[in-house]
């Protein structure tokens, strides 16, 4: 991460990644950190106990990391990635949250999405909604080149 991007305040990144958007990214980053840490511990210590739940934890953690990066980066490409990962997260928390109530035996161990993210103060449920709202308000400018 360099400071170069803020030298172009009129760019897409300047608009999307400014002000309260930085708070959103901070919360995403913290959640990504928490999910990666938890997933690491689960897989190293007890993967055999709940392969489905722990694989899902790892997948969720990876997606949170990608979403955090995509929110920071500019360009239409990253904008699409941000949408895709955030929609994936929202789907995940809804599907896994529902399944954990209906078929609790599928998830003997908690994932970040179990019980709609209860273990994480429901942040996994609320954050994708805020993320989608933020993205909808900050579309990349027309004709803006894809950032590599």
């Amino acid at each position: 991460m360099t400071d170069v991007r803020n030298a172009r305040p009129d760019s897409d990144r300047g608009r999307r990644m400014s002000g309260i958007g930085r708070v959103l990214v901070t919360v995403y980053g913290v959640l990504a950190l928490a999910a990666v840490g938890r997933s690491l511990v689960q897989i190293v210590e007890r993967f055999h106990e709940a392969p489905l739940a722990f694989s899902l934890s790892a997948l969720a953690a990876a997606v949170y990391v990608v979403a955090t990066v995509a929110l920071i980066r500019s360009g239409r490409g990253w904008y699409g990635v941000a949408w895709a990962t955030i929609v994936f997260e929202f789907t995940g928390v809804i599907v896994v949250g529902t399944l954990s109530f209906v078929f609790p035996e599928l998830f003997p161990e908690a994932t970040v999405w179990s019980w709609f993210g209860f273990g994480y103060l429901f942040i996994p449920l609320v954050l994708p909604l805020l993320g989608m709202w933020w993205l909808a308000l900050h579309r990349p400018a027309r004709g803006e080149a894809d950032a590599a």
Partner: protein
Amino acid sequence: MIEWFMWVQVGVAVAAGLLCLALGFAGRVPNDLALGALALVELLLLAQLIVAIAAPASGNHATGSVLEFYTYLVGALLLPPAAAFWALIERNRWSTVVLGVAALAVAVMVYRMFQIWTVQQA
């Protein structure tokens, strides 16, 4: 882990978090007070790291997963510097809110570390 020290640490982190949130919502850019509060949180985390390394030698062992404990501790140690860096790229009121969010996250993580050290869940 030493219980009273954990509570001091959680208290300081919560106070620092609320202070930064209040300053941020009041429209202040990160000042010495906000950054100093975050530095204090980081300092206490470093002290906690030393305590955690030294405590087993005096019979104070973690009852839970040591790996999980240190994953939280290392994660918590990374948060304040990362938040300060992220906040200072663009200095405005939201930078101060970012510092507050990080301090509150540290408070939660420290409490979770205490649970891992002392309480065993199913």
